[in-house]
C-alpha cells in the first residue's frame, strides 16, 4: 500500500541521521499541546468547546451515582472529588500493596468497584470508565506529575523504560527512536511529539472520542507493525508508568485534545 510505503520512508528519513540523541533533559520537556496547530489548541483551551469536557460531565454524574451490590457511590467514600481527587491522577500508575504491582487509574477505579461497591468491572475504553477516569484526572489539571516517585515502583519504571527503548515490529522501531530522538520532525504530515502523557484520557480528533493512554500505546504499536499488548497487560502498565515518570514535573492537562 502506498500509504505504508510512504510512512516507512518517512520514518527512515527521520530516524537515519540522528539516532544518538537519547533521553530528553527535563527542561526540554514539551507537552503534545505545543506541537498542535492553533485551532486544535483553541479546542482544548475553552472548556465549553472541548469535547473531552462532555465525558468529564458524564463522569461527575457517575461519581455521585450509587451502584453495585453495596449500593454505594464513589462520593459516599471519597466525598467531593474537587478536594479528594486533586493530584491523585498525577501519581498514577501507583503501587498496589495487595497486588504487589502498579495499577493504572482505570484499574484503580475497577478495583474500587469490585472491593467497595461490589460492582462489575467497567470494560476498557467503555464510555463509563473513560468518563470516570476523565472526571478524576480533571481534578488534577495543572498539578505537576509525580508518578513513579514511590521506591516500590522502581523495578516497574525500569521495565517500562526497557520496553520504551526496545525495538519491535516489522519496522523495527523503538518508542525512543521517534519520541526521544526525532520529535518535532514529521511523520506522514503529522509532527512527531515527545510522547508526554500529560492529558489522558484525552479527546483525539482522529478517534472522535475520548481514549486512554493504553489505546494510544496500542495505536503506536500497530503503527510500527508490532503485535500490540492486550488492554491491561503488565507491559502497558509499565510503559504508562515509565512515560508518567519521564514526564515528572509537567502539569496535567486532562482532558487534553490532540489531532
Amino acid at each position, binding site marked *: 500500500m*502506498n*500509504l505504508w*510505503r*510512504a*510512512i*516507512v*520512508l*518517512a520514518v*527512515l*528519513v527521520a*530516524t*537515519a*541521521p540522528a*539516532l*544518538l540523541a537519547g533521553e530528553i533533559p527535563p527542561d526540554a520537556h514539551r507537552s503534545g499541546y505545543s506541537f*498542535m*496547530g492553533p*485551532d*486544535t489548541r*483553541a*479546542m482544548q483551551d475553552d472548556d465549553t468547546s472541548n469535547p473531552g469536557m462532555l465525558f468529564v460531565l458524564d463522569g461527575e454524574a457517575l461519581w455521585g451515582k450509587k451502584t453495585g451490590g453495596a449500593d454505594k457511590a464513589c462520593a459516599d467514600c471519597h466525598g467531593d472529588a474537587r478536594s479528594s481527587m486533586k493530584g491523585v491522577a498525577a501519581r498514577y500508575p501507583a503501587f498496589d500493596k495487595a497486588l504487589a504491582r502498579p495499577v493504572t487509574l482505570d484499574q484503580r477505579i475497577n478495583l474500587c468497584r469490585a472491593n467497595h461497591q461490589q460492582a462489575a468491572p467497567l470494560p476498557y475504553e467503555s464510555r463509563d470508565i473513560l468518563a470516570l477516569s476523565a472526571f478524576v484526572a480533571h481534578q488534577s489539571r495543572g498539578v505537576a506529575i509525580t508518578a513513579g516517585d514511590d521506591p516500590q515502583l522502581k523495578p516497574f519504571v525500569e521495565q517500562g523504560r526497557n520496553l520504551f527503548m526496545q525495538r519491535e515490529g516489522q519496522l*523495527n522501531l523503538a518508542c525512543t*527512536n521517534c519520541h526521544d530522538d526525532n520529535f518535532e520532525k514529521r*511523520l*506522514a*504530515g*503529522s509532527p*512527531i511529539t515527545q510522547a508526554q502523557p500529560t492529558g489522558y484520557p484525552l479527546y483525539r*480528533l*482522529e*478517534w*472522535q472520542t475520548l481514549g486512554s493512554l493504553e489505546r494510544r500505546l*496500542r*495505536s*503506536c504499536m*500497530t*503503527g*510500527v507493525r508490532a503485535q500490540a499488548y492486550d488492554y491491561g497487560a503488565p507491559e502497558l502498565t509499565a510503559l504508562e508508568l515509565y512515560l508518567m515518570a519521564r514526564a515528572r514535573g509537567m502539569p496535567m492537562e486532562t482532558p487534553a485534545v490532540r*489531532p
Partner: protein
Amino acid sequence: MPTTRRQFLSLAGSVTVIPIVTLRPLEATPAMLNTAIRNVVGEAPIRTGKVKLDIPPLVENGNTVPMTVSVASPMTADDYVKSIHIFNEKNPQPNIGNFYLNPSSGRAQVSTRIRLADTQKVVAVARLSDDSFWQVTADIVVTLAACTEEVN
C-alpha cells in the same frame, strides 16, 4: 544508536518520493456537488462574494475540522441572511449542513466542526432576504495521521 545497515540500504534505495494516495470507493463527484447546490438554489444565479469561509488550509485531522462561515450583511429586517448551506466535493455525500437565520440573529456567522474525507473543496452558499445567492469556495488540504489504528 547507529543507523542499521537495513535502514541505510532502504534509505539509499528510496530516492523518489512516493505520493500518499488514498482510494475511497464512495466519493461525491463535482457533478453531485453541483446537483446538491442546485437543489438549494434552483435556477437562480450564484454570485461570488459576501460569504467568508474560515477553515484551516491545512487541517490536522480530517475527522474534526473547525469551520466558521460568515456573511457580510447588516442583518436588519429589510436586509438579512435567510440561510447558509455548506457543501463538499469529495465526501461520500455532498451536503455538510444547512443553517437558518433571521434578522434577530444580529450577526450572520455560524461555527461547527466537520469531516473531510480527503483534500478537497468546500463551498458555502448564502441566501439573502432578497433571494439572491452568494458563494465562496475554499481549498482544504487534509493531512493523514501517522500510526493510526487498524480500521475496524
